[in-house]
């Protein structure tokens, strides 16, 4: 690995491997970065001369060598002898000094790798035992390692040696449960380490640090599960891609490329720069003093309302428009309910000079006239969705139909963590900037990265996914998702999906959704158009079902009251969606020293008419 070594090192692996075998796609080039003091640097060699191994060990100050070719026991014996010899003085005095210093501490370890096929003759290990510190078992394949497949680990039941071993070959998120089972079994008694490689790459040599972090955390915490998506977009039983074949090429292309594109330095540079200079990030993490006094706890507001266009939605549309450009798409489509995502999409299309078509339910067009006007000013075409109930779900259907009709040049910018894989995961990753910032902002203000609670409202769930993202696999952080109860969960006019929904398929995703016993999707209701969706993103369905997240539903009346309270105590007019999150303060008692972060997903300008009507202002 070499392309993002420093980021990977930050995940605190015990060993990092550097491949010194030139034919490898992952061969190490360039300068060795400075690593964390406890990380051991291992050089990986394939039938290299002893001289070369020694030279690289000295040059890069390696802590060990991994022999991945057909090196013999005699080879290992000579190498061992050389590695434990004090070095002769070499031309580079500084380097040899370092290595001489090291000799005093610990000689580099030798790891001998073996390729395991459908069977393995363990008797060959005996001759190596005296000359190696560890064995490594990898899958037999075309290449000496990095083939990406796993072998049958149950073979290791017959492991006759006591030499500790590394397990390698095709270990990744998709066989996480198998690995956990293996580690718990007697066959793993001498398993010293797991070697993770190609399954965590977005391109050869480029590691997906998010996926690695999630995996490492789980492996280190027995019995823990991850709340991130697996490689097919499943969060537990939820997610996947239930799409008609007409959408397959588009979705498959996106699935194949999104992680790689997002990891490209040029993409990250452009994304970060736009978030900073165009959106105005980082958004402040504001200590709400009067609100904290009122509820006798420490409340911080994550100010997504201060973003350009007035909500968190733009984090995602910036990310996706850059994605669309790199995929060579010319035409952008989107769905919108209240018009916030439509405006955020029209905005980035104007910014990039791309054609923009926004589908919006006919009824919503009438209800949200100012946002329709904004989209038009920004150059977008707003197409009324005339089918079904003529609201958000139908606008989404129409956008999907448009994508079916225009499979080549069009990218569909979905507005939340919904839709077929990879959308939920991709949108969550773009919104993750919210919790990434909360971490360092809280560190500055409170001296710790983790709050006790994060609270966010959930329509489809994108602002919540972003606010929860960094904390999903940290059980010490409480996650509170707030749904719209409308006129009451049992009133028949509600959008509390976790309470009322059943497992089903909506817009290409298996998730919880509101439906009749017969499987027809029903129409939700909430005073806030942005929470008025009959489904919920698969991440949230899983957070709910697993109990990782606490789900609270808030009525129109409680939300409106909480919104007004925020105006009066803090001088901030919130979006009605966000007001739902604030209403939790009345429902749940926090401790005086709890640090509670509320994601203020948007500002209330767009809702002025609703506030005026409701409060008779």
């Amino acid at each position, binding site marked *: 690995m070499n392309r993002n070594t420093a980021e990977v090192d930050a995940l605190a692996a015990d060993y990092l491997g550097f491949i010194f075998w030139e034919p490898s796609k992952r061969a190490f080039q360039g300068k060795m970065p400075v690593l964390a003091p406890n990380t051991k640097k291992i050089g990986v060699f394939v039938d290299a001369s002893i001289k070369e191994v020694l030279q690289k060990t000295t040059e890069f100050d390696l802590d060990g060598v991994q022999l991945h070719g057909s090196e013999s026991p005699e080879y290992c014996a000579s190498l061992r002898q050389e590695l434990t010899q004090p070095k002769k003085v070499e031309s580079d005095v500084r380097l040899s000094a370092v290595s001489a210093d090291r000799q005093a501490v610990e000689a580099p370890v030798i790891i001998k790798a073996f390729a395991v096929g459908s069977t393995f003759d363990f008797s060959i290990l005996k001759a190596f035992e005296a000359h190696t510190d560890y064995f490594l078992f990898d899958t037999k394949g075309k290449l000496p390692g990095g083939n990406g497949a796993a072998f049958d680990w149950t073979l290791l039941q017959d492991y006759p040696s006591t030499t500790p071993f590394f397990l390698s070959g095709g270990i990744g998120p998709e066989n996480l449960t198998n690995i956990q089972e293996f580690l718990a079994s007697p066959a793993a008694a001498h398993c010293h380490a797991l070697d993770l490689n190609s399954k965590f790459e977005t391109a050869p040599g480029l590691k997906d640090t998010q996926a690695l972090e999630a995996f490492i955390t789980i492996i280190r915490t027995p019995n823990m599960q991850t709340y991130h998506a697996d490689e*097919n977009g499943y969060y537990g039983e939820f997610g996947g891609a239930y799409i008609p074949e*007409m959408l397959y090429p588009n979705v498959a292309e996106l699935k194949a490329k999104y992680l790689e594109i997002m990891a490209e330095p040029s993409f990250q540079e452009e994304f970060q720069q736009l978030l900073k200079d165009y959106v105005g990030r980082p958004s402040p993490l504001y200590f709400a003093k009067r609100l904290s006094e009122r509820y006798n706890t420490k409340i911080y507001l994550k100010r997504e309302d201060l973003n350009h266009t007035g909500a968190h939605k733009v984090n995602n549309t910036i990310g996706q428009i850059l994605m669309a450009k790199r995929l060579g798409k010319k035409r952008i489509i989107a769905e919108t309910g209240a018009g916030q995502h439509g405006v955020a999409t029209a905005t980035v299309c104007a910014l990039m000079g791309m054609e923009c078509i926004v589908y919006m339910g006919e009824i919503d067009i009438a209800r949200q006239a100012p946002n329709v006007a904004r989209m038009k000013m920004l150059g977008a075409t707003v197409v009324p969705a005339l089918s079904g109930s003529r609201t958000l779900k139908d606008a989404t259907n129409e956008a999907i139909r448009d994508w079916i009709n225009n499979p080549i040049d069009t990218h569909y910018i979905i507005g939340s963590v919904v839709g077929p894989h990879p959308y939920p995961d991709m949108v969550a990753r773009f919104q993750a900037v919210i919790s990434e910032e909360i971490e360092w902002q809280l560190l500055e203000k409170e001296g710790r990265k983790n709050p006790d609670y994060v609270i966010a409202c959930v329509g489809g769930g994108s602002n919540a996914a972003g606010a929860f993202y960094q904390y999903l696999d940290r059980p010490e952080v409480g996650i509170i998702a707030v749904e719209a109860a409308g006129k009451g969960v049992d009133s028949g006019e509600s959008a509390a999906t976790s309470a009322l929904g059943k497992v089903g398929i909506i817009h290409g995703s298996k998730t919880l959704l509101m439906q009749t016993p*017969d*499987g*027809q999707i029903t129409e939700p209701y909430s005073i806030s158009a942005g929470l008025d969706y009959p489904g919920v993103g698969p991440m949230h369905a899983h957070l709910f079902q697993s109990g990782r997240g606490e789900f609270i539903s808030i009525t129109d009346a409680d939300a409106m009251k909480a919104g007004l309270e925020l105006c009066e105590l803090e001088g901030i007019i919130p979006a009605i969606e966000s007001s739902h999150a604030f209403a939790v303060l009345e429902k749940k008692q926090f401790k005086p020293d709890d640090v509670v972060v509320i994601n203020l997903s948007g500002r209330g300008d767009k809702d002025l008419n609703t506030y005026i009507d409701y409060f008779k202002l």
Partner: protein
Amino acid sequence: MNRIVSKLKENKKILSLYFTAGYPNLADTLPTLKQMEAADVDLVEIGLPFSDPLADGPTIQNSSTQALNNGMTTQKLFEQLAGVREHINMPLIIMGYFNPVLQYGVDAFCAQCAQIGIDGLILPDLPLEEYQEHYQPIFEKYGLANIFLITPQTSDARIRQIDAASNAFIYMVSTASVTGSKSGFGPEQTTYFKRVSDMGLKNPLIVGFGIKDQETFDTATEYTQGAIIGSACIKHLTENGPQGIDTFVKSVRP
């Protein structure tokens, strides 16, 4: 042998009709099937209506909404079809979206289909991967054919994968579009029909989407074994009800 498979062994161009169950009136399902049988239709797709039919254009969407408003449900459809094999010999396929099937229970749904004498299912939003991973054994247990779609954008490799997983025919979507939205076929369609036909697949090809009259039927079946008419059939039902389907069929395949 599965009725679809034996029908496809006949040396003729297959004409298949799609209609929405419970449309235009709730009780029209069986009369429509009888009219179709009398009109010598080869194969029928009975549409199980869904609130959110993603792959359908306005004609079929509206018929689904109407059928649901008429009171059509999965259970109702099974009741209407309970004695269907006393009257109908044509192969019957149920075409619908996956969510209603999931709510009914995939196993229970397939069991009911088998009991009634349904021969196959088309569930456009149940993709190949999910089918193979979770549901294939259930379909096989009840002897139901599962029919997959391909489109002009489907890669050759994936067409071969779909061919390998299919056991009746492959539903060839004529153009990149939802149902009912294109008028007439151009040279790209002919090239696509020929290209796939030349692949020498093990399953016959039947073309759907955009077939509405004799001309489109003939173009579609030049290189394939048959064609499916959906929206044009719904339009006929909207205007005439089940009456006169024989005239409609003759106008397509004299």
